[in-house]
């Protein structure tokens, strides 16, 4: 690929289920669509929390095992601490007009981005089609995902 060739397609893998792990991938996917770049988002393992009806509204910031939070792990483990940090972060994001996860998924889908779940994770968590938000475009094997990503860039988060 030559140095100045523009990116035509990105396929973004979201593999973790905390708020701070899910948002970067969503922002990258939405930002790609805003630039006219084709975007696929592939959710695997706990990243699938972002697209399951039961959990997509309940994703939280990790306050334990997250040194960047700047609070001691023991303090982070106090009940309610994760909800507190989550609410703070959600408020700040709302001020920047970054939508809550369910609305963000809808926005990416409306923008033409594709939403996929990983078959191995779906089987492992024993999920059914009806467990997912309506924007889900399909459940893919890893092989399917590579076919879909062919010719573009793959970003793992």
């Amino acid at each position, binding site marked *: 690929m030559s140095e100045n060739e523009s990116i035509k397609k990105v396929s973004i893998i979201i593999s973790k289920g905390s708020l701070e792990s899910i948002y970067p991938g969503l922002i990258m996917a939405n*930002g790609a669509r*805003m*630039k006219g770049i084709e975007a696929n988002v592939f959710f695997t393992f706990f990243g699938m929390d972002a697209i399951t009806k039961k959990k997509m509204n309940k994703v939280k910031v990790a306050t334990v095992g997250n040194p960047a939070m700047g609070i001691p792990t023991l303090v982070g483990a106090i009940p309610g601490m994760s909800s507190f940090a989550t609410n703070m972060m959600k408020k700040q994001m709302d001020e920047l007009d970054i939508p809550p996860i369910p*609305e963000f998924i809808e926005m990416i889908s*409306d*923008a*033409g981005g594709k939403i996929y779940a990983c078959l191995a994770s779906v089987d492992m968590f024993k999920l059914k089609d009806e467990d997912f938000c309506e924007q889900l475009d399909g459940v893919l094997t890893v092989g399917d995902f590579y076919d879909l990503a062919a010719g573009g860039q793959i970003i793992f988060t």
Partner: protein
Amino acid sequence: MEKLIAGQKVSITSEGYLTDLSQWNKEVAIEIASELGISLNEGHWKIIDFLQKDFKQTGKIPTIRRMKKEGNISTKDLYDLFPEGPLMKACKVAGLTKPVSCV
């Protein structure tokens, strides 16, 4: 730099955004849009009107989310009407600056 658009001398950035909204008029919009391969219809004008109105009120380019919430412009329509870079193209046609938000 300066450019002749629709028979009118306007000042633009290197990326083609107008630097002075007062130099904008509908003929300028039609010509910028046609350079982008877009022929303006009622749906496009609704978006342009909202962008300009909101920019005048807030001093900022609205996000796509705000356009939906405040301007009643569905995200699907926006992407259909201004394909491949909707907010950037719509702002260019509306005579506004290049949007700088990540969302």
